């Protein structure tokens, strides 16, 4: 059972994600996380500002419960099922990141240069996280789904729109990492 405390390899994780999608399908729902952001906007009163948010959010309560579970699952994964949180990425990636100023590469789960309150106090990290979040929320709703809704659920159902969206995800990601990161960091 010692393996459970180690990082789970892709051939365990990928099939488990497929199982999660099928559990949701067989329970009569679907796998999609970003739609919860719209639900939360409506709960906060956004329906009075734009009719996009004017819907019965209670019909999405089931998905909010999945979100609550995902939060609990993150706690369990980090605190009860892990001995060492560092992520063993490719040494070549580590050296590229070190050149960009990420000295925590290879030694942490998330870069301490972005995800500590100390870093956030330096404003630059705060802006990066906020802008990153805005792009995620805006893009996911514009594209009608995120990684779970398009890359997993949509492509599993052989949806051409999902393929276009996933190609877009990669164009955006590659532009960010290869063209914009050298300017930002």
């Amino acid at each position, binding site marked *: 059972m010692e393996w459970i405390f180690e990082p789970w390899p892709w051939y365990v994780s990928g099939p488990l994600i497929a199982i999660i999608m099928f559990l949701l399908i067989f329970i009569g729902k679907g796998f999609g996380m970003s739609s919860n952001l719209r639900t939360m906007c409506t709960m906060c009163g956004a329906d009075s500002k734009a009719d996009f948010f004017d819907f019965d959010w209670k019909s999405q309560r089931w998905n909010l419960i999945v979100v609550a579970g995902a939060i609990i699952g*993150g706690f369990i*994964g980090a605190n009860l099922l892990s001995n060492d949180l560092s992520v063993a990425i490719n040494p070549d990636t580590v050296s590229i990141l070190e050149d960009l100023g990420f000295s925590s590469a290879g030694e942490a789960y998330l870069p301490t240069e972005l*995800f500590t309150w100390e870093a956030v106090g330096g404003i630059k990290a705060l802006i990066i996280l906020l802008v990153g979040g805005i792009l995620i929320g805006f893009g996911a709703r514009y594209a009608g789904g995120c990684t779970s809704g398009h890359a997993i659920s949509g492509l599993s159902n052989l949806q051409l729109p999902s393929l276009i*969206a996933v190609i877009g995800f990669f164009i955006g990601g590659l532009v960010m990492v290869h063209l914009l990161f050298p300017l930002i960091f």
Partner: protein
Amino acid sequence: MRSIGYLLIGIFFGIVMFKSEAASWFRIYEMFQFQSFHMYGIIGSALFLGVIGVQIIKRKNLKSFYGERISFIPKEKSFSRYMYGGIIFGLGWALAGACPGPIFTLIGAGFLPILIVFLGSLLGTFFYGLLRKKLPH
């Protein structure tokens, strides 16, 4: 009763996101540098089983646990909304190193500055709602 099912599936999902390291900013960066098979293996193996499973459900007309018909709603046909929205999402995914599922997972894992990404994602969703009618879809 169903609520407990949703909660357990969510917990399972959160654990998998964390333990697979799909919630790690570093793994996302490494993926966009094409320097590891890890993330491609996760998405690829999930899809391999996903495509087969969905085909089986459709061809055998399988019913849900509650005996209801399982219907897959086709996505609306379009190019621009998926491409433009996808690119914007991809920029954010690479910058913040997390997509919506892992954002929730990381809150639970205790990396609390992710709350700023979460707040941003709510704002981004809100901005989309305001601008929707002016955007090409």
